[in-house]
C-alpha cells in the first residue's frame, strides 16, 4: 500500500533541514480508504485514520457515468439525460435554509502554498499557476459575497511566511499582488507554523464584532516548522481564529487537527481536492459567511457607518486615500473628506464609509429563500405554465394510477416537473427554481401578490429569529 507513495517520501527526505518536519499519517481523498504514508509517518503516528481493510479501495470502485443512462421509451436518450440534469440541479439546490446567524463582517487571511510541492503538474498547467488563478477568483467572489469585509494574502515558501498583500477591503490590490506571483515559481518547503503565526499577528487588531479566519491552500505533504505547531494551534483557538484548509495532494493529519480544533470539532472545513473543478468549489465555498457557532465567537455591537453619495466635480481635486487627482468621488458624511472608492475607512476621521448597497448584498445570507417542494400530479392541474418564465408544463397523465404517484421521483426531481413555493403555492420550473435560489433569492410570486394581512416584504424574513448554529 505504501509503495505507491515512495516517490513522495524520497523528496520529503531531501527537505529535512534544521526544522522539525511535522508529517503524520495521511490518506488520499476526502473520505476514502487509508493509504498510510512512508516509514516516517508510520513511526510517528500510530493511529491510522479509517481502517480500510474490509472496504473496497476507492480506486476499485469505479463509477461509470454511462451506467446511469437508460434508453427512454422513444428509444432516444434525451429524456433520460434531461432527467439526470434536472436531478443534478435539484441536488445542488437542496440546502439547509434555516436562517442562521452568520459572521457577515469578516477578517480573513488567505495563505497560499508557494513551496516546491506546488510545481507538480497533476493540476493543469501546474498546481502553482492554477492556485494563483483560483486565488484571484476567490478574491473577487469574497468581496462580492462579503462587501464589508477585509482580506489579506500570505504565502509559504522556503520555510518562511511571505507577505503578499495586507489586510484591506480593496479587491484590486489583492488581485494585483497575486498576479505578480505568476512570474515566480514554487520554492523550498512550506511552514504552516510561520504562516499561522503571521496571520495571528495580522488578525490581532481585528475588531471583536467581526470574524477572524484563515484559509490555507496546501499542496505539500509536510510542514517545516521552527517550533511546536500544536502550541500555535492552541494560540489560534485562544484567539478565536478559525482555520480551513484546501489540500491539493492528500490529507495531512496536522491540517486535520488544525481544522478540527479551530472549528470546534468540525472537520468539514478540511477538504482535499479531487480535480481542478473540485478545488475551485472547495476554495469558493469558503467565501460564504461562516455560521456563528456560539455567542462567544463574535461579539455583537452597534457600528457607526456613513453612507456617502457620489458626486462629480467640475475641477479635479486630490483624494485623501491615494492622493491622486480625481474628478468626483465620495465625500465622508462626517468630515467631507473626499475618497475615491468605497467601502473605506475615512482617512481623516476614521468613520466607516460604505454604500447601502454593500449592506443589502449580504442580506440574502441572513434570510435565505426557503426550499421549494415537489408537486404531485394530483396538485399539478392548477398550473399549466411556470409562473416566472412562462414555460409550459407537461399535462397530467390520463391514467389514474400514475396520478397517485409520489411527488418525489427516485432521483429527487418532481414527478410533474413543477416545484411549488411553500408560502404562495405557485408552481415553477426547475430552471427558475435554481435561478431563484442561487441568484435572485426572492420568490417572484410572493413578491408580486399581496397576501391578506400584508406583512411588509422587507421585514418578512426578518421576523423569524435567527438561530445560533
Amino acid at each position, binding site marked *: 500500500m505504501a509503495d505507491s507513495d515512495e516517490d513522495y517520501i524520497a523528496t520529503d527526505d531531501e527537505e529535512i533541514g534544521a526544522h522539525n518536519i511535522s508529517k503524520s499519517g495521511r490518506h488520499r481523498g476526502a473520505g476514502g480508504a487509508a493509504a498510510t504514508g512512508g516509514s516516517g509517518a508510520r513511526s510517528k503516528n500510530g493511529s491510522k485514520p479509517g481502517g480500510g481493510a474490509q472496504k473496497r479501495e476507492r480506486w476499485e470502485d469505479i463509477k461509470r457515468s454511462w451506467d446511469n443512462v437508460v434508453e427512454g421509451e422513444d428509444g432516444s436518450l434525451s429524456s433520460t439525460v434531461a432527467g439526470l440534469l434536472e436531478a443534478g440541479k435539484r441536488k445542488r439546490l437542496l440546502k439547509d435554509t434555516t436562517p442562521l446567524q452568520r459572521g457577515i463582517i469578516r477578517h480573513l487571511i488567505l495563505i497560499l502554498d508557494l513551496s516546491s510541492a506546488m510545481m507538480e503538474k497533476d493540476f493543469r498547467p501546474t498546481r502553482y499557476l492554477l492556485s494563483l488563478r483560483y486565488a484571484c477568483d476567490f478574491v473577487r467572489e469574497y468581496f462580492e459575497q462579503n462587501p464589508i469585509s477585509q482580506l489579506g494574502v500570505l504565502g509559504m515558501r522556503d520555510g518562511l511566511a511571505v507577505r503578499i498583500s495586507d489586510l484591506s477591503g480593496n479587491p484590486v490590490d489583492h488581485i494585483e499582488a497575486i498576479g505578480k506571483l505568476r512570474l515566480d515559481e514554487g520554492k523550498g518547503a512550506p511552514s504552516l507554523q510561520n504562516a499561522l503565526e503571521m496571520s495571528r499577528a495580522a488578525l490581532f487588531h481585528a475588531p471583536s464584532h467581526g470574524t477572524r479566519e484563515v484559509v490555507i491552500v496546501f499542496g505539500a505533504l509536510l510542514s517545516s516548522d521552527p517550533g511546536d505547531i500544536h502550541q500555535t494551534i492552541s494560540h489560534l483557538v485562544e484567539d478565536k481564529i478559525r482555520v480551513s484548509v484546501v489540500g491539493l495532494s492528500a490529507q495531512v493529519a496536522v491540517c486535520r487537527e488544525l481544522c478540527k480544533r479551530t472549528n470546534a470539532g468540525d472537520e468539514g472545513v478540511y477538504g482535499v481536492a479531487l480535480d481542478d473543478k473540485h478545488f475551485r468549489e472547495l476554495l469558493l465555498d469558503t467565501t460564504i459567511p461562516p455560521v456563528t457557532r456560539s455567542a462567544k465567537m463574535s461579539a455583537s455591537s*452597534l457600528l457607526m457607518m*456613513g453612507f456617502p453619495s457620489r458626486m462629480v466635480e467640475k475641477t479635479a481635486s486630490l483624494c485623501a486615500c491615494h492622493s491622486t487627482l480625481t474628478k468626483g468621488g*465620495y465625500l465622508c458624511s462626517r468630515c467631507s473628506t473626499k475618497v475615491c472608492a468605497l467601502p473605506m475607512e475615512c482617512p481623516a476621521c476614521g468613520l466607516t464609509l460604505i454604500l447601502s448597497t454593500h449592506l443589502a448584498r449580504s442580506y440574502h445570507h441572513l434570510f435565505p429563500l426557503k426550499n421549494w417542494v415537489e408537486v404531485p400530479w394530483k396538485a399539478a392541474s392548477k398550473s399549466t405554465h411556470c409562473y416566472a418564465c*412562462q414555460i409550459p408544463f407537461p399535462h397530467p397523465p390520463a391514467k389514474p394510477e400514475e396520478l397517485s404517484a409520489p411527488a418525489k421521483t427516485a432521483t429527487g426531481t418532481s414527478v410533474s416537473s413543477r416545484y411549488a413555493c411553500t408560502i404562495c403555492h405557485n408552481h415553477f420550473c426547475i430552471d427558475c427554481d435554481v435561478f431563484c435560489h442561487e441568484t435572485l433569492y426572492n420568490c*417572484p410570486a410572493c413578491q408580486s401578490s399581496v397576501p391578506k394581512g400584508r406583512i411588509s416584504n422587507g421585514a418578512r424574513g*426578518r421576523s423569524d429569529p435567527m438561530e445560533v448554529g
Partner: protein
Amino acid sequence: MDTVDASAHYSQSVDEKPSLLVLILDTNPYAWSTLSATLPLERALASILIFLNVHMAFSHANRVAVIASHTRSARFLYPTTTSTTTAAGGSGGSEDPFRDANKYRQFRLIEDQVQASFAELMRQTTASELVDAKETMMAGALGLALGYVNRLVRVDDSGGVVGGKDGAVGEVTSMNARILVVSVSGDLAEQYVPVMNSIFAAQRKKIPIDICKVAGETVFLQQASDTTRGIYMQLEHPESLLQYLMMCFIPDTATRRHLVPPTQVNVDFRAACFCHKNVVDIGFVCSICLSIFCTPPEGAICTTCNTKLDISALGNFGGKPAVVLTKKKKTKKLKQSKATSFSNEASATSTPGTPAS
C-alpha cells in the same frame, strides 16, 4: 459593381445577436391619475407599443415581453399563457389578427395581446383596491422579468421548443437582454430587500436595468440603473414619452458600447433606516443582522434580531468633544510635565552654574 465585395458586410452581421427587451410598465392608476393632464395611461401605452414595434422591426429574431407592475399584483401582459384565446377573441371582436394584410403580423400580435391583457387587468382592478394604493409591485415584476430573461437567454428558442429542459443542455444562445422600467410611482421602501436582491441578480447576469422615470422619485431605481450600468432618465416633459423612448432607450447593449448613453452623474446612495424609514447619511448598523438605525436603539437591543448590542465602541465615535478634551488634557499634562522637568533641569543646570558665577 462587381468589384464591391459584399462578403465582408455579410460576415460582420453574422455575430449580431438578437436582443430581448423586457418592459416593465408601472400601471399604478393612482400615480397615473396625477399625470392625466399631460400623459394619460392610454396614450403612454400607445407610445410604448410603437416603441416595442420599433424594437421588433430591427430584427426578426428580436423578442419582447411586457410586464405590468400593478398595485397589488405583477403579471405578464405579453406573452400571456392563460388567456391566449380570450386575448385574440376579446380584443378585436370577430377580426382574425392573422388576416390583416396591412400590418406586420408580429406587431399585430403584440399589440392585441398587450391591449387585451391590459384591459383585463384594469377590469379586475376594483375601486376598493385602489384606496390608498400608492405602491407598485416592482420587486415581483423584476423577479418575473429576470426569470423570463434567464430562460430565454440560455435556452435555444428555435421554433418555440416546448420541452425547454432539452434546450438547457449546455445550449448557450445568448441574446442581448435588457430590462426597461417605465416608472411613475415613488415609494419602494417597503420592498427594499427584494428589490435589492433583484438588482444584484441582474448585475450578476449582466442585464442592464434602464429606468424611464416619468414621475415620482425613487432612490432604489437610481441605484438599480447605476449598479447594472443601465440608463436612467428623468423625463422633463412626460407628454413626449415616445420621443424619450426612441432617443434614449432603443439602442441595445451591444450598440451602447459605441454610444455615449445619457446617465446620471450624482447617485443618491444614502440608506433608509429600518426604524422610521428616514433617509440617513450616518447610521448605526447592527453587526449581526446589518439593520440600519438612525439613532442607537433603546436599551441597545437590536429591534430586528433582538440581540443585545455592545455600544461601547461608539464611545470613541460619538463623543467628539470628549475626545478633544482628553487629548488637550494629555498634551497639557505632557507639556506641564515637560515644562516642570525642563525647569527642574534648568534649575539643575543652573544650580551648578550658580555657585560658579
